[in-house]
């Protein structure tokens, strides 16, 4: 039986979505226990309002919250009664098997680095974001954790995400690209050139060389490796452009009676197309390279995302993600 910890303090949308997901998952999985970290009184009231009781739920009362604007390292040192710190202690003692949180990314990375510690051979734990493409989903690593990176770290990210991709998507030899400003080997800055050599020398990795940002959404590689600065710029540009294009299409559709009629006709196809680009169906983003399984989900997660992340966590525990990392370094 797995005991999965869930942060009931982290989300922007209140407690209800989280509790609904927990009830749904407990009904689906007989061999699942959930440890909830949050305000115990509020959680009990929420369960009561839904007429749900279970001996497979444990509450850990927390009366401090790590806010998004808190300094991550200072916060985990000071707010010892927060959900994230209490959960990290239980992860360290193996009292829970994994932890899902919509809370502060910085604090989660900080506990991965300072409390749970990186696995031997890894310098910096990292978040790999899953991005749907025109082809298979792609992992963007680093999506913003370490803005000043070293080539050895990027090489470690390539190794970590290679294992994660294999287990998450059941694909042998996922292709790995290195984000650069041209596809030729000599293109890029010093960090890219140095990283290129390190990844190329590792025959266990299916390295396809440099890739350009404009080609990524066509699904030219399964994993794209870059430093946290460029990765975050890419991610936000992609999100911003996609949002703008959608808004422009909506505005045009609403601009006349005829175009509204056309809009009605294409609505089902458009919905189908958009669902293909919904990353939340895959769950959250695990912190790769630390000694326990932590899944970071969006702050605005709703019931569906919590459920997906619980399913993802069970799957990654079944596939022994953390030990696979340890054996590979």
């Amino acid at each position, binding site marked *: 039986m797995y005991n999965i910890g869930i942060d009931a303090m982290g989300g922007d949308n209140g407690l209800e979505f989280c509790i609904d997901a927990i009830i749904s998952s407990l009904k689906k999985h007989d061999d699942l226990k959930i440890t909830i970290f949050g305000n115990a009184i509020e959680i009990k009231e929420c369960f009561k309002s839904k007429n749900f009781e279970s001996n497979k739920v444990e509450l850990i009362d927390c009366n401090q919250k790590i806010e998004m604007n808190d300094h991550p*390292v*200072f916060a985990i040192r*000071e707010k010892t009664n927060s959900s994230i710190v209490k959960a990290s202690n239980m992860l360290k003692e193996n009292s829970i098997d994994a932890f899902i949180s919509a809370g502060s990314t910085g604090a989660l990375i900080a506990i991965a*680095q300072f409390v749970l510690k990186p696995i031997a051979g890894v310098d*910096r734990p990292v978040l790999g974001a899953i991005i749907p493409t025109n082809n298979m989903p792609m992992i963007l690593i680093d999506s913003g954790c370490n803005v*000043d990176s070293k080539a050895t770290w990027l090489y470690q990210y390539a190794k970590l995400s290679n294992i994660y991709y294999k287990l998450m998507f059941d694909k042998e030899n996922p292709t790995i690209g290195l984000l650069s400003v041209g596809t030729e080997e000599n293109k890029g800055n010093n960090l890219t050139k140095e990283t290129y050599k390190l990844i190329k020398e590792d025959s266990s990795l299916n390295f396809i060389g440099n890739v350009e940002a404009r080609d990524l959404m066509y699904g030219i590689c399964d994993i794209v490796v870059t430093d946290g600065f460029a990765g975050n710029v890419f991610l936000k540009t992609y999100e911003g452009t996609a949002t703008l294009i959608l808004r422009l299409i909506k505005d045009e559709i609403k601009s006349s009676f005829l175009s509204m009629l056309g809009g009605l006709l294409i609505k089902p196809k458009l919905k189908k197309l958009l669902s293909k680009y919904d990353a939340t169906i895959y769950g959250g983003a695990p912190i790769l390279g630390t000694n326990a399984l932590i899944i970071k989900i969006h702050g605005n997660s709703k019931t569906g995302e919590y459920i997906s992340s619980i399913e993802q966590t069970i799957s990654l525990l079944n596939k022994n993600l953390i030990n696979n990392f340890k054996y590979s370094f």
Partner: protein
Amino acid sequence: MDANNVNKLKEIIAKFAKTDVDKLDLNADFKNDLHLDSIDLFQLIIEAEETFKIKIENSQLLKIKTVNDALNIIQNA
């Protein structure tokens, strides 16, 4: 902190600075001379806290710029 512990502390700092204890420059700046970032520095402090069973206040951490700063703050914690 006795001389033995000061040496132990210097060993911890030298390990993070990737240098020998006898080559450790006490005036070296962690960021500019030893090329350690804030994560490395926090890691160093946490290791010192665990080794010497001490607790350094967050407000003190921001004052650490050089090896000497670290030695002084950790010794006085």
